[in-house]
C-alpha cells in the first residue's frame, strides 16, 4: 500500500515537474517580450526540475531501499545558479535595449544610456571590485 | 533506430564538412568541431548501440562495448586540443594578416566587410 501511495506521489511529482517545465518553455515561446519571457524558464522550469528531482530521490530511495539525497545537490546548484543566469540575461537584454511591450510601466534609467554603456566611457571607471 | 542514428551522423558530418569549405576561419573551425562531433558519434556506434547497459562491471548482465567508448573519449580530448589550436591560430592569422580569410588575402583584395 505504501508503495502504491509512494508510486502515486512519485508519478504526480513527475507529471507536475513535466508540466512546470513545459509551462516554462511555453512561456519562453509565447510571451511577448524578452523580459516577460525571462520569467518562464527561470521560475517554472526550475520548479519543474525540483519536482522531478524529488521524484527521482523518492524513487531511488524506495527501489534501492536506502536514502538517496544526491538530487538535492542538483537542486542546490540550480537554485544558486538559475537566478544569476536570469539576472545576467536581463542585464544583456537591458544592454541591448531590447524592445518591450508598450504597456510596460516604469522608465528604467538603464534605457537612458549612461549606466549600461550607450556611449563610450573612460577607462578609469570600469573596475568595481 | 540504427537508421535514424546513421542519418543523424551523416547529416552532422555533411553540415560540418560544408562549413569547412567556407572561406573564413571561424566557420571552418566551427565546422571542424561539428565534424568531430559527428565522427565521435560514428566511432562510438561502431561497437553497436546498446541501451541501458553501461560498461560498469556488476551493474547488469550485459554490457555495451567499452572499447569504442574509450576510443571516443581519447578522440574527444584530442579533438578539443586541435580545435583550441585551430581557433587560436585563426586569431593569430587575423592579427598578422589583418583579415580572417583562410587564404589570408589582403583586405583590399576582397573588400572585406564586417
Amino acid at each position, binding site marked *: 500500500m505504501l508503495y502504491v501511495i509512494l508510486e502515486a506521489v512519485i508519478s504526480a511529482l513527475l507529471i507536475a515537474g513535466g508540466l512546470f517545465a513545459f509551462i516554462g518553455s511555453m512561456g519562453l515561446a509565447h510571451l511577448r517580450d524578452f523580459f516577460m519571457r525571462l520569467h518562464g*524558464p527561470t521560475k517554472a522550469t526550475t520548479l519543474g526540475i525540483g519536482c522531478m528531482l524529488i521524484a527521482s530521490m523518492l*524513487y531511488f530511495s524506495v527501489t534501492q531501499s536506502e536514502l538517496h539525497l544526491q538530487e538535492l545537490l542538483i537542486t542546490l546548484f540550480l537554485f544558486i545558479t538559475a537566478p544569476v543566469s536570469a539576472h545576467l540575461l536581463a542585464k544583456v537584454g537591458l544592454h541591448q535595449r531590447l524592445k518591450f511591450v508598450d504597456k510596460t510601466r516604469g522608465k528604467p534609467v538603464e534605457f537612458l544610456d549612461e549606466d549600461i554603456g550607450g556611449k563610450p566611457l573612460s577607462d578609469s571607471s570600469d573596475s568595481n571590485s | 533506430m540504427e537508421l535514424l542514428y546513421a542519418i543523424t551522423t551523416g547529416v552532422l558530418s555533411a553540415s560540418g564538412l560544408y562549413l569547412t569549405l567556407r572561406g573564413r576561419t571561424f566557420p571552418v573551425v566551427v565546422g571542424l568541431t561539428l565534424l568531430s562531433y559527428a565522427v565521435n558519434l560514428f566511432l562510438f556506434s561502431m561497437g553497436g548501440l546498446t541501451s541501458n547497459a553501461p560498461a560498469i562491471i556488476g551493474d547488469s548482465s550485459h554490457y555495451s562495448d567499452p572499447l569504442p567508448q574509450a576510443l571516443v573519449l581519447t578522440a574527444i580530448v584530442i579533438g578539443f586540443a586541435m580545435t583550441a589550436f585551430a581557433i587560436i591560430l585563426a586569431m593569430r592569422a587575423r592579427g598578422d594578416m589583418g583579415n580572417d580569410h583562410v587564404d589570408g588575402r589582403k583586405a583590399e583584395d576582397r573588400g572585406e566587410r564586417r
Partner: protein
Amino acid sequence: MLDTAVVISGALIALSLLLNLFRLTRGPDMPDRILALDTMYVNSIALILLMGLWMNSKTYFEAALLIALLGFISTVAVCKYLLRGDIIE
C-alpha cells in the same frame, strides 16, 4: 502508473525542448536565444533524470549534476560575451 507518468513527463519535456528550439531559431534577439539555450540545459537535466528513472539506474546522475554546473557557466560566458565582448578580461 509510474511508467505512464514517466512517459507523460518525458513527452512534456520533449515538447518543452521543441519549444526551446523554436525560440532558439526564432530569436529574434540574441538574449532570447541564449535564454532558450539555458532552458534547454535545464530541460536536459529533466530528461536525464527521467532516463535514470526509466532505466532504474543512477549512473546518469553525474551527467545531470554536470549539466547544472556547466550549463550555468556556459550561459554566463555567453552573457559576458554579449555584455563585454571579452569574456576574460
